[in-house]
């Protein structure tokens, strides 16, 4: 058997054992097998071991798809190492396949020479049929280009939990912990945090806790035995050199939720969150529903439209209104966004993008709602758009969205995507004191210099109108979605009013760019032959691809844009300093079109719409082609 995980590129560690810089492991099983849980706990142990990491949970839209089927396969990939990790990894080094379907759906992604760990207990005739295998791939030599470690995990699990008297079904559920135990051994990880977690998770049922811990320990012990027999090797990855401080893992959905809480605090406002269940955005509503003590009110509305309208109502009444959804729900909110634009009320709209159009790919990632965010409303309806590039970046982006919303009295769209929402990465826990507060002031006295009636649409600095809470004595006034007169806001659809107000709304949003940082070069030089321009979750693969290309001596730089609308003021000039512009996107070229439109530059697309993130290799190949 070949040695696993050894990559000749990497220097040998002291003692002669080849030490890889990074390893990619994919856990794949039935959607009921608990693969996401296994992956999550493995992530935690990896973080505690001091490795950098990135994860990619990939699961079906069905909650419990029929057992053993190809479409019911759920996978969790983690890339971890002793250097900076920005993607979940192109190809796995190790695939743990809990059944034939999981093997079939994932094995082709495995690196040549990689290791397959398969549970023979699940390779029954029936399961092989469900996975459309005529002959067991474990026996027919079709896995020859990989190393294979096939044994009966099911039986070993049953054996390990026997003393606890569980039913067969319950006992088999411990399989994922057995597998996790083996994985922990393989990468020299502590079991203690997982044991604590299991005790906590099953505190109402200590027998289940003990059974799962026994399975975990048994899997771990098996590693040692198997190593003695030869096929399995233990690998140790050194901790990544990291800035000192407190760390935790965070998913994008968690980071958005925390960022919104922080944003509301920095604005000195209570937050009102109106939401409606939709994949993959629901997690934000779930998270915030548990944070009442932070002045958060959550409201599960009857539909997407009611969700945003209730948030608009709350903003009107003086709270920070927030709503969140994914593409189809955002489409439904479009008219109400126009109302917030027209009435000039602050609002944050989070879009966790997924594959579209229509229902599309509910659980898969895509960046195809950029046009919708920038252009997708009736009328001339500009609003600021911000895109988070990673789970941890989503925290700062959410704060930024809150800031712009209240400082400019405007709805703001924050774009994340399914990948960012679900993926986890280590996060240096920020200190709230490091963020500059932006407390809101409400108008409380008449702003009419002539002493007449209050002027709710009298524009001040940056063309921003005052925020007036109903309940304020002496300032009664009416607002609405219909065009309005200058200053008074009275109903007025005269040519002058519409021209003036349309211009004013546009100028106000354009002006947001004056208050945002100049675009920096993320990696590389300020001029050159090629710049790769990215936005959102392509950050990881672009960073790595550009790093590799530059290491090869190629003249390529990386510019990653957070402020999608309005664009940074210097971006046009910056991009014109490069001979060529490449824009990798998980859509058919939307940001590329915006860049062409705004700057008249020959931006070239690299489009991917498979529901999967870019691999580093795909972007590297495109860079090579552009510079060939």
């Amino acid at each position, binding site marked *: 058997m070949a040695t696993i995980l050894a990559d000749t590129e990497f220097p040998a560690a002291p003692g002669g054992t080849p030490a890889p810089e990074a390893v990619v492991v994919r856990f794949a099983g039935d959607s009921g097998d608990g693969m996401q849980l296994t992956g999550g706990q493995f992530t935690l142990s990896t*973080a*505690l071991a*001091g490795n950098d990491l990135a994860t990619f949970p990939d699961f079906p839209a069905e909650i419990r798809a029929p057992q053993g089927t190809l479409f019911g396969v759920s996978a969790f990939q983690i890339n971890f190492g002793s250097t900076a990790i920005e993607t979940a990894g192109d190809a796995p080094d190790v695939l743990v396949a809990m059944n034939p379907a999981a093997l079939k759906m994932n094995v082709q992604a495995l690196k040549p020479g990689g290791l397959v760990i398969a549970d023979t207990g699940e390779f029954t005739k029936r399961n092989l049929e469900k996975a459309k295998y005529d002959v067991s791939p474990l026996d027919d030599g079709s896995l020859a280009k990989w190393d294979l470690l096939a044994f009966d995990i099911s039986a070993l699990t049953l054996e390990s939990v026997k003393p606890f008297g569980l039913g067969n079904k319950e006992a088999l559920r411990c399989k994922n912990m057995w597998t996790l135990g083996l994985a922990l051994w393989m990468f020299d990880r502590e079991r203690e945090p997982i044991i604590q977690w299991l005790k906590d998770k099953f505190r109402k049922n200590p027998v289940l806790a003990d059974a799962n811990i026994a399975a975990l320990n048994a899997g771990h012990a098996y590693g040692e035995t198997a190593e003695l027999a030869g096929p399995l090797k233990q690998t140790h990855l050194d*901790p990544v050199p990291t*800035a*000192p*401080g*407190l*760390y*935790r*893992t965070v998913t994008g959905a968690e980071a958005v939720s*925390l960022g919104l*809480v*922080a944003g509301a*605090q920095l604005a000195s406002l209570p937050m*009102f969150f*109106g939401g409606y269940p939709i994949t993959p955005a629901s997690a934000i509503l779930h998270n915030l529903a548990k944070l*009442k*003590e*932070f*002045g958060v*009110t959550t*409201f599960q*509305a*009857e539909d997407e439209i*009611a*969700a945003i*309208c*209730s*948030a*608009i*109502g*709350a*903003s*009107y*009444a*003086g*709270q920070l209104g927030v709503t969140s959804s994914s593409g189809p729900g955002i489409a439904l909110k479009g*008219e109400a966004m126009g*109302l917030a634009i027209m009435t000039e009320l602050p609002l944050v709209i989070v879009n966790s993008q997924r594959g579209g159009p229509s229902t599309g790919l509910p659980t898969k990632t895509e960046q195809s709602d950029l046009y919708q965010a920038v252009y997708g409303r009736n009328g001339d309806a500009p609003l600021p758009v911000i895109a988070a590039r990673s789970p941890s970046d989503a925290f700062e982006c959410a704060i930024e969205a809150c800031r712009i919303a209240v400082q400019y009295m405007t709805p703001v769209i924050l774009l994340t995507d399914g990948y960012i929402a679900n993926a986890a990465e280590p996060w240096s*826990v*920020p*200190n*709230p004191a490091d963020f500059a507060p932006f407390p809101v002031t409400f108008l409380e006295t008449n702003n009419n210099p002539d002493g007449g*009636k209050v002027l709710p649409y009298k524009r001040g600095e940056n063309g921003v109108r005052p925020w007036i*809470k*109903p*309940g*304020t*004595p*002496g*300032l*009664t*006034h*009416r*607002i*609405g*979605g219909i065009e309005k007169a200058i200053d008074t806001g*009275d*109903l007025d659809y005269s040519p002058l009013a519409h021209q003036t107000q349309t211009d004013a709304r546009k100028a106000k949003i354009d002006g947001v760019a004056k208050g945002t940082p100049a675009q920096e070069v993320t990696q590389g030089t300020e001029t050159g032959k090629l710049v790769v321009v990215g936005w959102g979750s392509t950050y990881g693969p672009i960073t790595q691809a550009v790093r590799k290309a530059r290491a090869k001596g190629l003249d390529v730089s990386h510019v990653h844009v957070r402020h999608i609308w309005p664009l940074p003021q210097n971006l046009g000039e910056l991009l014109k300093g490069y001979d060529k512009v490449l824009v990798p996107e998980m859509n058919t070229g939307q940001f590329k079109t915006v860049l062409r439109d705004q700057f008249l530059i020959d931006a070239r697309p690299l489009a991917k719409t498979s529901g999967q993130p870019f691999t580093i290799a795909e972007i590297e190949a495109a860079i090579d082609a552009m510079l060939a």
Partner: protein
Amino acid sequence: MNDMTPIAKVQTTLKDWESDQEVRWCPGCGDYAILKAVQRTLPELGADPANTVFVSGIGCSSRFPYYVESYGFHTIHGRAPAVATGVKLANPKLDIWLVTGDGDGMSIGGNHTMHLLRRNLNCQVMLFNNEIYGLTKGQYSPTSREGTASPTTPLGSVDRPASPCAFALGSGARFIARAYDTGKQLPDVLKAAYHHKGAAFVEIFQNCIVYNKDRFADFTEKAVADGHQLWLKDGEPMLFGKGTKGITLDRDALTLKVVDVVANEDGKPDWQGAGVIVHNVRNKAVAHMLVDMPFGPFPMALGVLFDDPRPTFEDSLLGQDAKAREGKEANLAKLLAKGQTWTVAGTAADPV
């Protein structure tokens, strides 16, 4: 009985509730009468303009907020209930009047109307029912009667109309009332709605003089009013036609029935003798029968049909939130550092 809405009474006059905006409804529109009735009622309620918010959707009725000197929000088609929910949850002290119509509230916004009533948000819902789309020039609406000829139904509509009050009752509303634009009883109905703590649903028949003129004349005209209007009052017998007719329960068929009532020797109607039933605003079963009473064989049931309060949405939700906050501190730094954390130690060169 109902709890009074705890709002400090403020001295105002009708004039104080008139905004400086020119009213733009068609001359003779029933909306004028409703606007005046509301502006007359608010001072009597001791309402405070600064604390009052009129929220509307789209349609003729939804222009209403512009004409009332209070806070007002003219939102988008059908969505006023959702906006109002956000306003009330953000500031439960505000007194909210929702203005909608049969198209706005029963068609495009039917879903939101249902959920506002089901949740029991404390507000007054005035649904102006003119059985037509006025602002878009006369198309038939979800409350138009079968056979209504309109630009979109030149051969007459074939679908059966929805009954707003039956819809509201079915949605779980705890207060259902009916009135009509020019009726002198409208202020009293509005006051009852105001004093009901919870979602108070008031259907107001409104005459669209351009596209559906006199649609309700067969019970609103003075000459026929007595014989065709059944004004319901809690604890009083269901009499109409100046006491010559009443409503009884057919106990075999379990339906309502119109009966003749003769006068006693003292000249007062002997309604007990005729078996006329007494209105109990808490009786939901009878309320269902009243809202479904077919007009023609029966009079139009008007006034407060049902009034049986339950805890409001904002009290329940915000109360639950307040309880959840008890004893917890809002420490953001601690929140950020929650869950499984680890510390990367500093070095001598770079101490933590």
